């Protein structure tokens, strides 16, 4: 094998897992398939990644079912919703869970695992400390809620603003969400119609973001309720950085108005962010409608 083909082979070996997950980009896919065509070794390494004969990737993995009480507790957000909705519809997966000795209900939090580093203190001591923790948390939450209602009475109304902490790298920067702004506000950025395709490659340039101007977004028609009934649905707006949630606001859809502003207390660090809008479905049991915008801050 020449040096060039050896390095191509090495490159291919490192792409096989991503390839088998369908994760490679178009050019990489073409390059890897060309390599696979002439490389029996890579093809043989790929073969064990096919589902076992007679099984399908359309059902819950056997490894998830086997460790359900621990593993299902780790699922979050969309992945959790997808597993939940599949379980509702799939009698086979429910039967397999029952066979493995589990109830077809996703666990709320990781249970203790004997001998593992994540195991909790055992028995009564753990329960005791949990109660103290819960009571303390409830007390703190009540205090925060009282402060919010006193300081921001319009928070639960349609128009107004809410505060949320940016939980970024180390320091907390509060971010205010302001709604129902004038769409002619200075520096407003018009968000395009949401759609899954053709946006990820083109982030929206929002310039520098400080507490003076914040980021003002004029919402497209899809992000405005088509009817009063739709306006009552719950909308969750989340700002994310590298997949981590930084700040979030939950309120009725109608409260958004024509334009919204996100105003950090200090200056927002330069980089790419995602703004996610998640609207509750019109019919119970359906998944929420989710839209993303990639924002580039200077």
């Amino acid at each position, binding site marked *: 094998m020449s040096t060039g083909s050896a390095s191509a082979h090495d490159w291919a070996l490192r792409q096989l897992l991503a390839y088998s*997950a369908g994760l490679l980009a178009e050019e990489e896919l073409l390059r890897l398939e060309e390599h696979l065509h002439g490389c029996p070794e890579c093809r043989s390494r790929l073969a064990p990644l096919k589902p*076992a004969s007679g099984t399908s990737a359309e059902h819950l993995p056997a490894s998830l079912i086997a460790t359900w009480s621990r593993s299902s507790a780790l699922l979050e957000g969309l992945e959790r919703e997808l597993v939940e909705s599949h379980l509702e519809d799939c009698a086979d997966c429910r039967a397999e869970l029952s066979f493995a000795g589990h109830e077809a209900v996703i666990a709320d939090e990781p249970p203790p695992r004997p001998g593992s580093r994540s195991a909790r203190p055992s028995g009564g001591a753990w329960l005791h400390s949990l109660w103290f923790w819960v009571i303390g948390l409830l007390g703190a939450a009540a205090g925060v809620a009282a402060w919010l209602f006193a300081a921001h009475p319009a928070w639960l109304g349609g128009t107004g603003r809410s505060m949320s902490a940016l939980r970024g790298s180390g320091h907390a920067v509060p971010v205010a969400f302001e709604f129902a702004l004038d769409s002619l506000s200075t520096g407003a950025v018009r968000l395009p119609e949401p759609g899954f395709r053709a946006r990820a490659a083109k982030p929206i340039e929002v310039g520098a973001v400080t507490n003076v101007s914040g980021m003002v977004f004029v919402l497209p028609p899809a992000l405005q309720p088509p009817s009063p009934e739709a306006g009552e649905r719950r909308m969750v707006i989340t700002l994310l950085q590298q997949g981590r949630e930084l700040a979030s606001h939950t309120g009725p859809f109608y409260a958004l108005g024509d334009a919204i502003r996100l105003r950090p207390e200090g200056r927002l660090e330069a980089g790419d962010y995602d703004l996610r809008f998640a609207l509750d479905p019109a019919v119970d049991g359906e998944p929420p409608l989710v839209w993303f915008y990639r924002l580039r801050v200077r």
Partner: protein
Amino acid sequence: MRRKLKSLPEDTVEDLAREAMVTLYRLSRRETLVNPDALATTLVDRVCVDHVRRRRGPSARLDARPEKDARLELPAESPGIEADVDMLELFRFVVLEHFHQHDAPCHELATEFFTELSWSALARRRQLRHSTVIKRWSACMEQIRELAYAQRGPVWEWARQARIV
């Protein structure tokens, strides 16, 4: 299992045995099992190989297929709880379920690819150009890439790591 993977903790052996049994049960519900003992041995071998792959993480090189009776070497680092689940399989499941709910053509493509793992073979069967199928899939994956970038949770974390190679 202990012959193939030495120094495996007791609870991991239990998990892997349960995983093999769940697959056996799954197969038994779909078809009559001709030789269940041999099948169980094959499944145990497969579970052991998969376990080693999971422990190596998403950005490691794929190993050559081991000899039938070869002992497998586990990486030195102790596993996180995420190693319990085959994240590759869970990722595929999440992709299929997402497309099942939102995009039927992408769901069809994903189902065929995850079974066959060859876009060339899929293009031949559909009598389409290779580049056409790959373009369609790339358009489908735009949705998933956005989710992988923006969503929280072990599946998306795994997907992000799998691409950083």
